[in-house]
């Protein structure tokens, strides 16, 4: 029998405590709220599944969910290929490496609300560099009034903010490929595409799994940037689930419905994250027995 080392429990205990306080206990509280009604003063009344019925029948919820899914889909469609393309073109050795890495890391260091403020001003038609330049060029652009312009602004902003994360992760995968792989490919007379398809892409697959998961979860939970730039408008055109949720919980103080919506939101994120993870790691353990 293998010796059992109980010290491991001691080492994971701080993480368990942290996760319990920051995630598990708040989540339990949200579940408790989702089946009750409150008018404040810490008084609660049993409501059963009423809030879930309300959320699932609400057009407002499905519209926000649809917007969120479309936003995340567009973000992944742009950021993943663009990040890989940038990583492939970044220098692998020499003095340019450090400069490139610093430049790529810069957008990641800026807090979300500052990014929102930068783009909120940048896109303004009266004083913003982007907005006024487009106006001078005769482009009819106004993210405050036009839903399409608002969406384009949010997407470009997210691409600007987060593509470098994908690029850095893909770059980490690329630099871990030994030179011998490239030499073998050269000897075989492999084309650039073949090198990418059979050498670089498989080596990047793991880090790209992380990149897709991180970008999906982040873009699906996006709140600060659209809140600062568009505030969910014009109309409700950029009201994503998180913005809707905050409006419901903090603006309207409907804690029960907001909690039910949070649970549904959480389950959807869990489901999509699992699907991405399962699809991207399905070939990892080919030694497993058939069922």
């Amino acid at each position, binding site marked *: 029998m293998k010796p059992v080392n109980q010290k491991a429990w001691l080492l994971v205990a701080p993480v368990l405590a942290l996760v319990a306080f920051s995630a598990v*206990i708040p989540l*339990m*509280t949200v*579940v*408790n*709220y989702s*089946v*009750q009604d*409150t008018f404040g003063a*810490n008084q*609660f009344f*049993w409501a059963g*599944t009423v809030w*879930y*019925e309300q959320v*699932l*029948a609400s057009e407002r919820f499905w519209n926000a969910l649809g917007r969120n899914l479309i936003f995340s889909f567009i973000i992944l469609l742009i950021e993943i290929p663009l990040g890989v393309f940038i990583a492939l073109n970044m220098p692998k050795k020499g003095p340019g490496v450090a400069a490139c890495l610093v430049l790529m890391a810069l957008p990641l260091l800026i807090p979300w609300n500052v990014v929102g403020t930068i783009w909120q001003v940048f896109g303004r038609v009266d004083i913003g560099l982007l907005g006024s330049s487009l106006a001078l060029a005769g482009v009819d652009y106004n993210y405050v009034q036009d839903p399409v312009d608002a969406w384009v602004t949010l997407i470009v902003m997210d691409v600007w903010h987060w593509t470098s994360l994908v690029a850095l992760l893909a770059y980490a995968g690329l630099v871990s490929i030994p030179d011998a792989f490239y030499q073998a490919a050269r000897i075989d007379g492999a084309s650039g595409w073949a090198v990418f398809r059979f050498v670089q892409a498989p080596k990047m697959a793991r880090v790209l799994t992380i990149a897709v998961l991180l970008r999906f979860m982040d873009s699906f939970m996006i709140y600060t940037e659209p809140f600062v730039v568009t505030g969910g408008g014009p109309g409700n055109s950029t009201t994503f689930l998180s913005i809707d949720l905050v409006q419901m919980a903090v603006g309207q103080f409907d804690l029960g419905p907001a909690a039910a919506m949070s649970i*549904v939101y959480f*389950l959807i994120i*869990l*489901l999509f994250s*699992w699907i991405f993870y*399962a699809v991207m790691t*399905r070939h*990892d*353990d080919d030694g*497993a*027995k*058939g*069922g």
Partner: protein
Amino acid sequence: MTLAWMAWTPVTALFFIGIACLLVGMSVWIRLDPRNEPRRGVLGLVTQRGDRLFLSLLGAAFIHLAWIGLTPEGVPLWGGSLVSLVYAGLVFRFV
């Protein structure tokens, strides 16, 4: 310290005790029967018991949501729980 701010109800307490019992049960099961080799099931995914429990719980949550959203008013929720049990059985057998 009082837990009033967490707004506990007997029903939600039972729900979480149930989840905790499932986790403890899984730990006991692996002690009693350590044969937990990964296998490739009908979904083409490699899973172990823990993965199947996760899929069962996640599926059960969505089955209950679908039950609430799709059945007419007055249909008891435990109908969804029965479907979830059958689903969990299928997941543990075939996935």
